[in-house]
């Protein structure tokens, strides 16, 4: 199989490391060669962060370059727009609609662009957008945005539900498993 590429983007501290861990675990257990490239350190302090997940028969590069991503999974809509040039023609966007103002917007040096989802759709891009924060709260914790997104992403994969559940179980602390299962379901069955 040709290598498939996923990028996970968001704001430092939003929980992308766990999302990539669960995905990586899942894909390896499906028999793929997998590479996951993460960001640690400086950018975690509220900066823009990107994680790459690649899988296929044999994966070489750990990073996803411009025009290569089959999926953009995004925790924040401005970040979706920022990393859009990574999307492959025909690629799928799965994004949280939450807006988090970056410091230049807070200080008034820049404006937060409006109607980003509409602009993407107007260009014919495939955008699956939803308010993951509300769904996460509904599941029991605003920290579960990452799992809501994964639930939604699972929609686009031909991988059995059991395998997703197994990977969740293997990677989240037992006391949060039920909450995360719920978040996963809410994301998966969200109707946009």
């Amino acid at each position, binding site marked *: 199989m040709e290598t498939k590429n996923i990028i996970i983007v968001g704001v430092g501290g939003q929980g992308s490391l766990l999302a990539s861990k669960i995905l990586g675990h899942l894909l*390896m257990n499906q028999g793929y*060669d997998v590479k996951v490239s993460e960001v640690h*350190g400086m950018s*975690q302090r*509220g900066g823009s962060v990107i994680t790459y997940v690649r899988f296929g028969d044999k994966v070489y590069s750990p990073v996803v370059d411009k025009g*290569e991503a089959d999926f953009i999974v995004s925790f924040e809509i401005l970040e979706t*727009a920022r990393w859009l040039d990574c999307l492959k023609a025909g690629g799928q966007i799965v994004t949280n609609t939450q807006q988090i103002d970056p*410091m*230049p917007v807070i200080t008034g040096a820049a404006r937060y662009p409006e109607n980003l989802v509409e602009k993407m759709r107007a260009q014919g891009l495939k955008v699956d957008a939803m308010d993951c924060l509300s769904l996460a709260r509904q599941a029991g914790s605003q920290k579960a945005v990452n799992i809501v997104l994964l639930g939604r992403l699972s929609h686009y994969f031909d991988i059995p539900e059991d395998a997703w559940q197994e990977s969740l179980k293997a990677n989240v602390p037992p006391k949060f498993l039920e909450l995360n299962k719920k978040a996963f379901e809410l994301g998966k069955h969200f109707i946009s």
Partner: protein
Amino acid sequence: MKQLMLGNKAIARGLYEAGVCFVSSYPGTPSTEITEEAAKFDEIYCEWAPNEKVALESAFGASLAGRRAFCGQKHVGLNVAADPLFTMAYTGVNAGLVIVVADDAGMHSSQNEQDSRHYAIAAKVPMLEPSDSAEALEFTKLAYEISELFDTPVIIKMCTRVAHSQSVVEIGERVVPEKSYEKDIAKYVMMPGNAKKRHPIVEARMKNLIEYAEKTPINRAEIFSGEIGIITSSTSYQYVKEVFGDSVSVLKLGMVNPLPPELIKDFASKVKRLVVVEELDAVIENFVKSLGIKVEGKNILPVIDEFSQNLIAKSFGKEVTAGVTVEDKIPARPPVMCAGCPHRGLFYSLKKRNCTVLGDIGCYTLGAVPPLSTIELTLCMGASIGATHGFNKILGEKSEGKTVAVIGDSTFMHSGMTGLANVAYNQSNSTVIILDNSITGMTGHQQNPTTGFNIKGDPAGKINLEELVKAMGIKRVRVVDPYNLKECDAAIKEELAAAEPSVIISRRPCALLKYVKHKPPLAVDAEKCIGCKSCMKIGCPAISMKDGKAFVDATQCVGCGVCSQLCPKKAFMSTEA
């Protein structure tokens, strides 16, 4: 058993399997997780040392005692540890000694982009360079064999993309080789008479290592085409394979010092066009040129920043897709001090007094970005104090009353103490502010000698900063709470005015530490708020303006209350029930 593993964790696994008994490191992105992961094995003694030099010397001591030892650091860490490194090449080791240096091409979290291969060459020490997690594990074990076989420390060079990428590894068993210490003055006491006898041994060892490099399976030629041949290593190898697959020939080097001249000559003779693909400096390329071989490299590839598959494809004249955009003006999202960060209040006070702030490295370096924009210098760890001393010596009264050094607790332990010794000894009228957030924050919360806990989180020795500073002869020492703006302001004013060296300890634990209890988030009373934006001056990510009024994001706010001290209308209220 197959596992998906972070490159740094794979090194830790390699340490475990190689029977390493002692690890001493100082944190630094992208190397930190090696030591954190090693500390999860009960069989390995692990510690955070105050700095890289101490860490490497401690690891050397453990090797001398007869157990395999390890020291890890980021690229600039090896600058600090360079002194013991160079002479260790002379003494050699007892049990195996391996050093990881993690480079950061692209400067994801660093102050420069230096290429550590120069150290291996200059210190005459072998260097291995893995290209993924499986090699990270395998090379770690091999490095110990080389170390003991050739009686030398061995460096493993990582880079951000290998250190922080997960790929599939196969794990094995732990085997612990043991040696005993034997007194050997001629080998270990490097005074001139002995060192003169050791230097020829170093040179002979390098010759033997070249022979090893010619034959080791970690240097391998993948011959597919006679047209293009690429010499490469590390993550660059992965990009080359990504772009070319099996359509070009590749000489993949797992050992980058010393380089194998015969292997390179042989490979060069099999291809028409020879190109070296290496990040940062032209180290391999220059070596190939020194063999009299025609080679390309930095004529088509940059010496700046990290590579990617598209960059390599473009350099070879291949087309790449540009990708779509919907918005030209995407505001940047630089890292910021977290909501509730104790550094914020202190920096606000320094800004208000219009101080000249010579800074250092840590989370507090973010005091240089808008809207605080207070820090005017960041060079290397510890430099704030040395630079302030020199600055004040030259400018005297013009600067003494308004210049401060700011330095974190971990950075002060790392290399600030010696700077303060200079202030105390040579008596500059300098004011030093130690930003004591009770943790090494920037690199992701590592303990240090001032926190009272060791790497495993167990109670440990605790250095009292006030006592330490006083013992150095600094008489004016005071502690402030950075959440209290009035207190900060008074301390800064008075210590700057004093006619002798002084130290202010700004003390409050990092807001992200698990044990720190937060107050409920604040909210703005829209009736009272006049939209004056006074609260926006501190650059808190939890505060923004909505419809002309300040608004607090309750998901971020930790109730520190610094903003409310700035509000002229007392519009901030607690949401406490």
